[in-house]
């Protein structure tokens, strides 16, 4: 009880939380009003159950493989209806319940003040020692991130609607002009670094102004992307060049999705020939298991896989030293991927995965550099595009 008072005093003492900086609810954007409404609904439920002296609980849609379905007509991964209960009066869930409520209050504060925070910022905003104990509300950021995702799914609100974003990862360069938060940006004049793709790329923030690109080439990581940028591949082939730094973050995926749907650009992916690369492609194409509820906004079912393919070892005449032996883990993961419903019925993919397993090695895109520094930009990708030799 005493603790409550202490906390309140402390709160009012912080200048950021002073009531005058609060924007009146009526002036908030409509989208934020809706989010606030669902946050309030979550809190009201707690008060109601407490009034009826029942144990409060939350229903959180389950974010696991068992609760995703592959929608064959739309060709995207959708979340099922399984829900996990999170109870306050359950030893193993009590802390998570408390954390969920904390995240809720943190989001409410952000919306009220019309500010955004990074995942890490949110973690620091909510982290404090529980009164009377030595326990922290969150031990580290990895405690906090999944809880934020839980709030997203249970409120059916997107992360940006909660005013939380992840750190930037991924760059873009190419024939595209856009407006980011009021600044005009020409992606053809971004130098060697490119345009850093922000975490939130909703039309309110990033507006496409003009583009005459013909397609989007998404490569796996920064090093390959630099090769392409240095060779001015995007100029020669009139395209947009992106990378996602490995598994692409939501910002990159959402941007690809918008480029594909709004500018009608086909998306081609150049990824490593390993289970990891396969899965990146799968995430871009039909959405991820963890964020299945966002597939509609993220997935690009028409994306195509350019390479590297297992046949490229013979086709390009690579030397054995350019290959990496498959580890136990790789083999396991490859078999797992082959069984995913969205790969299961595709013969070329089954052949591809089989071929890799038979090869017993994986290849990175960089392995093509062993043939010639610009082999990948001047021969490999142009040839694939020319022949329209893709995996679906």
């Amino acid at each position, binding site marked *: 009880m005493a*603790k409550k008072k202490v906390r309140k005093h402390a709160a009012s003492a912080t200048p950021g939380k002073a009531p005058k900086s609060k924007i009146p609810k009526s002036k908030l954007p409509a989208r934020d009003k809706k989010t606030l409404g669902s946050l309030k609904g979550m*809190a009201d439920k707690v008060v109601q159950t407490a009034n009826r002296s029942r*144990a409060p609980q939350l229903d959180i849609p389950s974010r696991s493989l068992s609760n995703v379905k592959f929608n064959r007509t739309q060709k995207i991964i959708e979340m099922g209806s399984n829900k996990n209960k999170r109870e306050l009066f359950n030893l193993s869930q009590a*802390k998570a319940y*408390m954390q969920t409520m904390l995240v809720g209050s943190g989001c*409410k504060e952000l919306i009220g003040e019309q500010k955004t925070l990074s995942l890490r910022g949110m973690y620091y905003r909510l982290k404090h020692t529980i009164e009377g104990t030595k326990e922290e509300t969150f031990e580290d950021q990895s405690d906090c991130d999944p809880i934020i995702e839980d709030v997203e799914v249970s409120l059916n609100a997107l992360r940006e609607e909660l005013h939380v974003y992840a750190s930037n990862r991924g760059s873009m360069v190419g024939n595209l002009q856009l407006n980011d938060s009021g600044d005009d940006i020409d992606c053809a004049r971004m130098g060697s670094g490119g345009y850093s793709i922000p975490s939130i790329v909703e039309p309110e923030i990033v507006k496409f102004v003009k583009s005459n690109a013909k397609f989007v080439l998404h490569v796996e990581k920064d090093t390959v992307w630099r090769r392409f940028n240095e060779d001015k591949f995007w100029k020669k082939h009139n395209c947009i060049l992106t990378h996602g730094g490995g598994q692409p973050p939501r910002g990159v995926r959402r941007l690809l999705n918008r480029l594909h749907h709004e500018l009608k650009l086909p998306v081609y992916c150049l990824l490593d020939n390993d289970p990891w690369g396969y899965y990146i492609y799968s995430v871009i194409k039909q959405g991820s298991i963890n964020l299945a509820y966002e597939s509609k906004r993220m997935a690009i079912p028409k994306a195509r896989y350019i390479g590297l393919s297992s046949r490229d070892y013979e086709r390009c005449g690579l030397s054995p030293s350019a290959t990496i032996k498959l580890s136990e883990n790789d083999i396991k993961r490859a078999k797992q991927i082959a069984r995913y419903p969205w790969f299961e019925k595709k013969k070329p993919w089954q052949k591809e995965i089989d071929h890799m397993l038979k090869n017993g090695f994986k290849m990175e895109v960089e392995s093509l550099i062993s043939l010639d520094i610009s082999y990948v930009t001047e021969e490999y990708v142009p040839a694939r595009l020319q022949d329209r030799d893709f995996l679906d």
Partner: protein
Amino acid sequence: MLSSAKRKRSPRKKSGEQETSDSGAGGAADGVVRARRRRRGTAESMAAKQRDISVSEFFAKNRHLLGFDNPRKALLTTVKEAVDNSLDACEEAQIVPEVWVHIEQTGESRYRVSVQDNGPGIVKRQIPLIFGKLLYGSKFHRLRMSRGQQGIGISAAGMYGKLTTGKPVKIVSKISIRKPAHYYEIEIDTKKNIPEIHNGRGNGVDFPPGEKGHQLMRKKGIAWVSHYDADKEGVDPREVRSGTRVSIEQEGRYQRGRGSVDEYLQQTAIANPHVTLHYLDPEGNETVYSRSTKTLPDEPKEIKPHPYGVEIGHLVTMLKDTDASTLAQFLTSAFSRVSPAVSRRICEGAKLSTRGSIKKIGRDEADALYQSIQKTKISAPSTDCICPIGEDLLLRGLHRVVPGEFYVASTRPPAVYRGNPFQIEVALCYGGTSVVEKVTYEVLAELLSQSDARTLRQFLVNTFDGVGAEASDKILKKAGFGSRQSPGKLKSSDIDKLHHAMQNVNLTDSHAMQVYRYANRVPLQFQQAACAITQAVTKMNWRSYGLSQSRGALPNAPVTIMVHMASVWVPFTSESKEAVAGYPEIEKELRLGLQAVGRKLGMYLRRRQKVKQEGERRSIFLRYLGEVAQAVSSINDADSKDLYEKLLRVAERKTSEADTKLDSRGKKIEETGDFGGNVLIVDQSPEALLEKGGKEQDEGQQALF
């Protein structure tokens, strides 16, 4: 053993004869010539050196067989033999025993051990024989449950004293309040195994009864406790009516800790709740273990041997010694459980006549008889010759000395191994603070100065019971010492640090189980690993009773377990009586006994765990409720205080089980009904300790040091 020692010499005699005849032939090959030159003795010269070895001489050279391996152990063995004899004598005479043990330092590594009892005393002519002759006693030839067995112990202690200091054994004995006290100074003639009396021209000295005699003895410097409770105020001291006091001066080393005199007396007090022990240690501290009951254990009956327990050699000797004339007579009179019908069956099996003369039975017939006995079904020996301590007294004894929160005891029904009846008793104590936490700064400093351990770690492991390597590492880490720190050169600030660490380290998990082993109420302190009792404890799966245990080791828990084996003949692995041999029947009984206490411990621990869990549950909920209430109120502006109160009520309802358990405590002893008896639960709350009064606690504390 004796026979084997003699046998060693006899083969030589034969080979000697052989070679002599060889040399007579002469003029053989080179090798033989060389061999002849090398020979230094002839059969004749060797025969001159071949002679009897006296038992005493044998043991003087092989003192380790009797427990006199090193000075430290020698001191303990002397105390032990004397105390055991005293208790045996008192119980046989139906006197409630009171024993005074006094150890004083007389030189650098010399101690005088004096033990006096209030027993029946010894008649004058027997005193020299009992204390000055090895293998002389009343206990060897009969089958009866007693502490001593062979009649070696006390005279061997006297012999050891003479060997190391040259001083004779001094004995005072008095058989009645009206009879004089006899005083003897005796030493053993190791060659002849006969006593040599030093005082009174070989006849000892007598002191008259009453105050006059006491004064005379004091004048001559002969110690004798003449009255009970001499120092106690307000009590009229009663005169000690009879008793025996033996004092032996010997080489020794006094050291506390594991395997010490202090530990032996403490453990003796546990297993003998009817005994009062007064102990005056070399530093002049007196410890008294007062009896918790005045009832003596039932007198054990003497029994005849059971046929199954007799070996062929023994059978032949018995046949030779018997007065019976016919075989049937012999069998029914010399053995227990052999009725005429059984003897007939045995004879039939051996194809011998029941009326056949004993004289006509030779080696072959004896063998046939032996085989037949093994095949004939004979009922087990009567087991009323065994007097267990009993579950109630076990609990009392353990509670008196070992502080804890849960006690359980189990006495198994008697069983039989190789025709010898025996009975297993197990008592267990769980919890309580460890010795490590209770040791005071002064005692610690003293222990450190006494220790000969090379490292502090070794010191901790050797000195304190229940402290294993893991626990000592924890203590050292907490105190900030390296593991190789020497215990000798600690500054007082370092000792303070160590003391502080010892009191503040939580050792519950790294606490090794303590095993107290007893055979006929005598604590066994050495050869722990070789003993069937320890092996049985180690083999048990304690994990199913809620203790943590690594494979092949004693469990790690604050548990003290005492196991008592009572038998007419305890099968020791050696003469020094340190470890019980593992016969399958004994192992089985041990297992069953351990399981019986283990089950109840498991019940208690599970129940405790549940109460604890409920309590923890509630505290976890309470911890988060405030956060939840505040977070909710910051979202929807609800009254956080009101919400907190409401959530608190729900939490209380959800964890009400913990509440009821907490409320029902506060009594000294909880109801024990559903444990099925023989269980003692001591409340650990501070209020309960106050209620109980400091007295009992002090005693427990004192008992350990």
